[in-house]
C-alpha cells in the first residue's frame, strides 16, 4: 500500500501496454481526457478501447491511431452529433478498419458488473426483438432455472486490463471520492486488472475519513494516483469546472476533416509535454470562464462513537 502518487507520464508508461483493453470511463462527467492525450503522446498501439459512450476523447484516440477495436453502447458526440474519426474508420476503413463490438447501455454496464463481481455472465431483460444480438454473438439467451422460466439476455464479463478513473479528490494511497454523475466508474474499476486514479486534488486521509460514504473507489484496487487539475476538460468535474460545450461543438468541425484533426493533435497533444502545458496554453481566462458559483451540500452528522 502506501503512497502511489506518480506523474501521468509514468502511470501511462508503466500501466498501459500495447494491445491492452483500456477503459477510460465517466458518463459525460469526469472523462479523463488528460490520460487519453498521454496515451496518444506515448504512441500506444493496438488498444481495445471500452467505454459506454466513446465521446470526443475516443474519437481523438481513434483519430491518432492508438485503437484497433472499440467496445461501446453509444457512439456519438453528446448533444452535438457524430464522432467523425470513428465513423471514417467504420464506414470507409479510412485509414484502416476499426473492429467494433456493440451493446446497449444496460448491457455494457452489466458487462462491467459481471467483471467486478467475478461472475461468468450477467442476466438482463433487454435485446428482445432487437437486431443487436444478431450482430453481436456475445449477447446470448437463457431461461431462468426457476419456475417461471423467464427468458433473459446474458452478457459476458468485461475485464479491462486498465481502467482509468478521474475523481474530484483522492488520498495518495488511492481512496477516491466522486460526487455528481457516477456513471459506471465503480464497476469499471473493480472489473479491471490495473486501476489509475486521476484526481483534481490530493487530500489527506482525514478528509476522506470524515465522509466515507462518498468514497467510490477504494485504495485496495488502485495501482497509481495522479494529481492533475482540469484533467477532464472539455468534460467536467462537478463543482470544479463546467462542461466546455463550445469545444464539443468545435470538435464536430475539427474531426470532419482529417487534416484539421491531425493539426489539432499536433498543436494540443504532440507538441505539448504534459497536461500542465495544455492548461497554460488554454490560458487562465478560459479556466475562469468555466468556474461555477459554489453550491455546497449541508453537512451530515456521522456521530462519534468512542
Amino acid at each position: 500500500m502506501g503512497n502511489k502518487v506518480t506523474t501521468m507520464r509514468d502511470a501511462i508508461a508503466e500501466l498501459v501496454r500495447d494491445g491492452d483493453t483500456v477503459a477510460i470511463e465517466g458518463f459525460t462527467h469526469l472523462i479523463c481526457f488528460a490520460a487519453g492525450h498521454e496515451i496518444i503522446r506515448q504512441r500506444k498501439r493496438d488498444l481495445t478501447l471500452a467505454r459506454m459512450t466513446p465521446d470526443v476523447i475516443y474519437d481523438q484516440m481513434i483519430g491518432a491511431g492508438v485503437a484497433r477495436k472499440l467496445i461501446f453502447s453509444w457512439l456519438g458526440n453528446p448533444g452535438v452529433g457524430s464522432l467523425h474519426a470513428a465513423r471514417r474508420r467504420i464506414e470507409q476503413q479510412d485509414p484502416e478498419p476499426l473492429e467494433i463490438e456493440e451493446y446497449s447501455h444496460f448491457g455494457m454496464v452489466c458487462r462491467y458488473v459481471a467483471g467486478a463481481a467475478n461472475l461468468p455472465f450477467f442476466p438482463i431483460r433487454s435485446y428482445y426483438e432487437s437486431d443487436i444480438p444478431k450482430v453481436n454473438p456475445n449477447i446470448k439467451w437463457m431461461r431462468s432455472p426457476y419456475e417461471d422460466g423467464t427468458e433473459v439476455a446474458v452478457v459476458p464479463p468485461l475485464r479491462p486490463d486498465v481502467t482509468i478513473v478521474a475523481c474530484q479528490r483522492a488520498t495518495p494511497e488511492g481512496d477516491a471520492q466522486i460526487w455528481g454523475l457516477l456513471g459506471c466508474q465503480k464497476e469499471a474499476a473493480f472489473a479491471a486488472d490495473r486501476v489509475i486514479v486521476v484526481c483534481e486534488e490530493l487530500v489527506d486521509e482525514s478528509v476522506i475519513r470524515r465522509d466515507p460514504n462518498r468514497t467510490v473507489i477504494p485504495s485496495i484496487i488502485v495501482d497509481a494516483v495522479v494529481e492533475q487539475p482540469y484533467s477532464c476538460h472539455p468534460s467536467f468535474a462537478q463543482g470544479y469546472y463546467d462542461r466546455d460545450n463550445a469545444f464539443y461543438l468545435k470538435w464536430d468541425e475539427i474531426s470532419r476533416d482529417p487534416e484539421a484533426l491531425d493539426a489539432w493533435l499536433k498543436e494540443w497533444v504532440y507538441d505539448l509535454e504534459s497536461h500542465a502545458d495544455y492548461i497554460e496554453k488554454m490560458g487562465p481566462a478560459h479556466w475562469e470562464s468555466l468556474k461555477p458559483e459554489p453550491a455546497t451540500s449541508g453537512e451530515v452528522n456521522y456521530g462519534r462513537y468512542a
Partner: protein
Amino acid sequence: MSDPGYTKNEIMIAASARLLAGVRNCFVGVGLPNIVCNLAQRTVAPDLQLVYESGVFGARPERLPLSIGDPTLVSGSTAVTSMFELFAYYLQAGLIDVAFLGGAQIDRYGNLNTTVIGDYHRPKVRLPGSGGACEIAIHARKVLVIMRQAQRSFVDELHFRTSPGHSGDPEHDRARGWWGSGPTNVVTDLGTYGFDEETGEMTLLTLHPGVTLDQVRENMGWEPKVAPDLGETPPPTPEELRLIREELDPEGVYTS
C-alpha cells in the same frame, strides 16, 4: 400559406407536452424532448419528475443543457444514481412512466433504427447505436416519439431494428410480458399519431393546422392509416409560446 405565428418545432413541442398531462415521471432526452418535459412541468404536469439517462432523478435544470450529462442537471436534483441503479432499479423494475425516443428511421409499428443506414457490416452511415434506447423501448410504460417526417425516415422497412416497437400481432405483444408495449404516440412536423389497438399500426390522429393528408402521404414510405375522426392539432397557446420563447429556449436553439 400565411405565417401561423409559430414554428414547426413549436407546435411539435406543444403537442408533445400535452401528452404528458398527469404523468409522474419521464425519461428525458436532449433537444426537443428536454423542452417538451420542461414545458409540461410548467403547464399540464406540475408534479412531473425529470429523469435523465445520466443517472439523475428529479432534475431542476437552471439552464438548457446541451447534453444529458450536464452539471446543471445534478445540482438541485432529488437523487443521483449509478448507471446500474438507473437501468436496473428504476427502468427495468418498471418505475418509469414515460420516455422519449427518436431515430433515423421508424416503421409503421414504431420500431426504431438508431444504429446504421445501409448494411451493418458495410454501413453507408454509421449512427450512434442503442445507448439506452433498446431497454427504454422495452421497459418504459409509455414511449413517445418526436421526429420530423420524411420518406427516408418513415420507412416501409428498417435497415436495422435497434429498439422494438409493436410486432403487428397484438396477441403476441400482450404475451411479451414487458412493462412497455411499443410507442404510444408519434408527433411530427405534420401531425400526431397513435397506434391502433387491434393491429399495432401507426394511425394519424390529427393534422397540424394547414397541413393536408397528401403532404403526410408524400412524407412517409407507406400508405398511412387514418383515424375515422381525423382532427386538427390545436395550435400552441400564447402561454405555451411565451414559456418556450422566454423561459425554455430564449436563444431559439431548438425552436426557431
